[in-house]
């Protein structure tokens, strides 16, 4: 059995376990069988279907989106430290989302999708700005250059958000709670809002799995191998921004998922993007469901923002990858 095959089996198993825990564990213990047992207790059934299940699904979608977007950004930029958060793309998406909330924008034909669409636009614009600026600074786009550029943009966009919060009136509470990053009390409507974009974004990235493999050897090399680099790059940037924008729109800024998950996946199952992308998707979902479970149980009844948990795991991993790359003399 190949390494990848083992990867799929283990990852799916992990996801199932995560869902099981996410559904059954909490202030009220509910057996997982409530999901399919028609004769189950009405209160338990309500908890599972109205509260826990949408939460688990949303956490799964957000985790999957961030993880696969991170994997794609890392491949595209040949940079193991790239992820929506470190690149500043999440901040861009936040600005898009906060702007929507701040001005109460609602585009008629977009309906409930107004928020994710604006968030995506924010993500995409930031992505292009970060890459263009990094290229301007250093043609070779070294690992550190890209990350520093990401920090510059994050800081700037963060201050834009703070400014808007300071100017905001009654919308303040909504924005603050959203900013901290959480998947609680979102309900099925958020799942509905996110699902189509997660599907399209994931598809866009998955279609470029082999192209990403080629681009790991540099854009020129990929071009020589027959990859239409311009077009493929655009597809990946749009796909990644779409996923980041959606994740931010429904859950706020949750950092490091896109860094930790692809890295662990590569470490365990190899760095072939044909497998790294789908495996990151599955593992990202599992990881965020678990993180969410921890965030709502660790100091219950108070809930910790989920971003705290991911940063707690993510920052050391970030440091570890950075250390290893420098030791290797890589990039």
């Amino acid at each position, binding site marked *: 059995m190949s390494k990848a095959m083992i990867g799929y089996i283990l990852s799916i198993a992990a996801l199932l376990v995560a869902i099981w825990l996410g559904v059954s564990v909490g202030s009220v213990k509910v057996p997982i069988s409530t999901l399919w047992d028609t004769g189950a207790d009405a209160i338990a059934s309500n908890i599972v279907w109205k509260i826990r299940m949408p939460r688990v699904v949303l956490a799964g979608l957000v985790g999957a989106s961030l993880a696969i977007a991170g994997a794609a950004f*890392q*491949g595209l930029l*040949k*940079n*193991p430290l790239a992820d929506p958060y470190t690149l500043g793309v999440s901040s861009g998406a936040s600005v898009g989302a906060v702007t929507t909330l701040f001005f109460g924008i609602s585009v008629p034909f977009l309906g409930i999708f107004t928020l994710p669409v604006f968030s995506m636009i924010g993500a995409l614009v930031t992505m292009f700005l970060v890459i263009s600026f990094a290229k301007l600074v250093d043609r070779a786009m070294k*690992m550190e250059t890209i990350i520093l550029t990401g920090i510059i943009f994050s800081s700037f966009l963060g201050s834009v958000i703070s400014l808007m919060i300071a100017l905001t009136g009654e919308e303040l509470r909504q924005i603050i709670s959203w900013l901290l990053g959480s998947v609680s009390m979102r309900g099925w409507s958020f799942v509905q809002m996110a699902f189509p974009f997660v599907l399209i974004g994931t598809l866009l990235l998955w*279609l470029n799995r*082999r192209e990403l*493999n*080629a681009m*790991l*050897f*540099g854009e*020129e*090399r990929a*071009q*020589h*191998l*027959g*990859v*239409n*680099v311009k077009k493929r790059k655009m597809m990946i940037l749009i796909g990644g921004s779409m996923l980041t924008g959606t994740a931010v729109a429904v859950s706020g800024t949750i950092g490091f998922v896109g860094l930790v998950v692809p890295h662990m996946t*590569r470490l365990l199952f*190899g*760095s*072939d993007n044909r497998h790294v992308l789908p495996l990151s998707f599955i593992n990202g979902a599992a990881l965020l469901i678990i993180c969410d479970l921890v965030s709502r149980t660790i100091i219950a009844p108070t809930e910790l923002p989920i971003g705290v948990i991911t940063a707690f795991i993510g920052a050391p991993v970030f440091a570890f990858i950075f250390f290893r*790359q420098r030791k*290797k003399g*890589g*990039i």
Partner: protein
Amino acid sequence: MLQVENVSGGYNRQLIVKNVSFHVEKGEMLGILGPNGSGKSTLLKVISGILHKESGDVLIDGKSLHAYSSKELAKKMAVLPQLHSHAFSHTVRDTIALGRYPHQSGLFASWSNKDEAAVNLAMKQMGIEKYEHHMLDLLSGGEQQRVFVAQALAQQAPILLLDEPTNHLDIAHQKQLLDTIKTQANENGMTIISIFHDINLASLYCDRLLLMDQGEVKVIGEPHEVVMKEQIETVYKARISTNPHPERPKPQITILPDIKEWREEKLITIENFQVTEELVVFQAEHQLKTWSSAVINAGTGWYRTFVNRRVDAHYNIDNAQTEMQQFLTNRGYSETETVGMMTAVYTKDAVIKQYDGDFGSVIIMVTAGVGNAVDVAKAYEVEAMPAIGTINTWIIINGELAEEAFIQAVITATEAKTKALAYEQVKDPRTGTIATGTSTDSVLVAATQQGAHIPYAGPITEVGKKIGLGVYECTVEAIQTYKKAKGWE
């Protein structure tokens, strides 16, 4: 197959390649040469479509490069750029498999038997099957380079562009790689364009060479039309000398260093000779440029010690080379710095004389045994076996001899020797005519390559006159001594 027409291009509107035109036929291997910064890599990038060209056109099978889609182009042309580092680790097999990208299509892009066969063949051609499942970043630079060549080969495109493919490779792998590529050209009609740093490798393997200078084509043609002393010196701004390849009709170059006083000037004299019971030995402080027909280290080379060894008449000459080598090693003479000859004559009978001239001086050493004297003009009439009994002539010159002067020195010495034999009435016993030499005569010309430049050494030159006189006198004296020793007189 591939036509480049008036192509100009570069970075940021600054033209690095200017008005380059050439064409390459199917199955041809074209080498691109030029000093650093002459635009070789830029030209290759323009041809491969990576860099936008300002003007001109590149045609593949009569169709403009830009009329091809990315995948179509990759099916026509594989490119191997200079080695780059990368951030993530792939296995060797996965890396080579990427070469099949242009041949795969559809949503799931299934891996066909043809893809599998192409990858396996490419690995075999580059001799990297044993690394198949290794991680690329754990291989050495040379091994990685071979993996990338295999990736390009797996692409199975009729045109292959290479940028210094032998970078990072040791000579065995350089040879293996170029042999493999050349075989692709010869047997499968692959068209190859490759940048070379190494002029000798380019000359050896390519059908034609293109020499670039400051972004323009200086010359394009067969290796002998491109690898010419003045041309290479002008373009590369380095002193070189050309010489033939020992096996192939391709010119090779050698760098001539500009370091002055690389060794102090040292005259050689008759004092450098030493005669023992067994040996006549000449020993110089510095190596001399030597041209000889000796038993050990014949041909051209730089040697410090010359040995003329006496062996008796029953010496078994079938195994002479090995025995002589062994003998010299046992006596402590360096295998790589010693020229060895043999004679049946007593070493005390060797005639050694010095002749001084305006150019420098000539020292002659002759040992003559004329028991096997032969008249070369009648030699076809009789059967003769090689035997001991020979005339060994050494001509050692203080001066800097040109190539042709070495040859002329040998002619002059041979003529003088023949004259000496005639004077001494030495006859070929089988034909009864005047002999011209013996069946196994040997000659050695050596020069210090310091002091006066000596372009010629014919009989009307200063040095030729000394050689003629010296060899004649010494040979006559040696023959007379030989006759006395044999009791002929």
